[in-house]
């Protein structure tokens, strides 16, 4: 009995957060909110120090899993740097395993994108140009409109010792 309450306390995000505020320690990266199914077939994870950047990408990847009944995420409050990620599984499968799988899949996806990007960069099959010289362009435009001489050449020549 004591064990199970202790366990619940470990996974109780509200408790962890409060404790962290009191002790000034960083909250755990990931916790499971109270109210999850005992077999973890439906749980809400709390990811600390994360936002829509990872939340939405992860949500999409989890939804790509055929064993997932529901997945959604929310940022409970804009000034709290955390997100809640809800996963519900079919056939009492584990949402934790699903999350692990999705993280691994997301890593595969990103490394694939990176490889392709670097391949494209190495192929050198693109336009290489110089930047537009804005100062020169402005000067030329002004001159063409007849403003060239009247304009103070203030920021024209820079004297740096």
């Amino acid at each position, binding site marked *: 009995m004591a064990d199970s309450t202790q366990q619940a306390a470990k*996974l109780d995000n509200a408790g962890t957060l409060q404790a962290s505020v009191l002790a000034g320690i960083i909250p755990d990266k990931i916790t499971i909110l109270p109210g999850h199914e005992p077999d973890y077939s439906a749980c809400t994870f709390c990811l600390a120090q994360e936002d829509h950047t990872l939340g*939405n990408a992860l949500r999409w990847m989890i939804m790509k899993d055929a064993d997932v009944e529901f997945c959604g995420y929310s940022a409970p409050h804009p000034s709290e740097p955390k997100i809640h990620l809800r996963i519900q599984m079919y056939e009492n499968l584990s949402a*934790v395993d699903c*999350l*692990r799988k999705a993280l691994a899949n997301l890593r595969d996806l990103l490394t694939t994108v990176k490889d392709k990007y670097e391949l494209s960069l190495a192929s050198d099959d693109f*336009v290489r140009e110089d930047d537009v010289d804005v100062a020169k362009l402005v000067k030329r435009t002004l001159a063409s409109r007849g403003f060239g001489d009247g304009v103070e050449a203030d920021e024209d020549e820079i004297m740096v010792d």
Partner: protein
Amino acid sequence: MSRSNDDPRRQVQVLPERIGNVADSEFPGHYPGEDHSWNLQKFKKNLICSIQRLTPSTVEFDLVGVDASIANALRRVMIAEIPTVAIETVYVWNNTSIMQDEVLCHRLGLIPLKIDPRELVYKKSANSAPHDRDTVVFDLRVRCDKKDGSKGETDPKKMYHDSNVYTGMLQWQVNEDQRKRMGGEAPRPVDPDILLVKLRPGQMVDMHCFANKGTGADHAKFSPVATASYRLLPHIKLRGPIPEEHQEKFQKCFVPGVIAIKEDEYGSPQVVVENPRKDTVSREVLRHKEFEGLVELSRIRDHFLYNVESAGQYRPEELIPEAIDILLKKISDVEVGLDKLFEDDATAA
């Protein structure tokens, strides 16, 4: 090879008064008999990443075959999470210019610094003592004086010494260890010609600046990009021939270069879509009665045209790999957190 742009499932409809078919529907269980679960091989086959244009400050590239959530994650990381080094703390020993201390200090903070952020670590806390591993020091000491023999002159440049204070006047406090780590290059502002403040004879600024590593999430001055954005590839479908008398008008409904008028095999002029990429999707064509039902506008949902402009701390082509590395770090952080959660769980039980 990639899927056809004419596939209606890939299209976000651009209708006269609204957009339609916005969200992707290709998830497991949505279409009976179709498998849309994650498949790395299929993803690899469909993915296209091709750089279109590279300049010293910007990179433009296409990313085809990813979901908006991934594309957006990359954009968000580039803006807010790739670290750079910027002036964070300033000791104002003297400032007799007309600009208030705090305004001038704010301006100093916004200067992009040419310092490789990968060679520095984050400061432990705002109050911890600076260390040459986490802090780069600059001095700004400028005094304005009258030039001799400038009587009757009205140009401040000719009348005074150092009447303009530029970023190039920031002097790095030499630290050989830092120089070695930066590959022999002295830390400096990206642009030496940004005007910070103007002085008049007798006025001076004397400031001691501490630059630290930080991210755009904390303050926009740390953001390594001036812009990082994407748009979806426009797609124009002609549903029937445009009568010859309206062809020029049709062409003018689009940005120049989007629509061309070419002769077909019988020698009669026909409207063809030349380069939809240039289109701004203004929907002008949908306002005219004579083109009703003849054209369909849309955007390709998974074809992203990125435009990334570096603020100067990184080379533009380095930003995407950096962003991906940061996302990968986020993933492994969560994995470690999961391990820890269940490790604690096991010991508690």
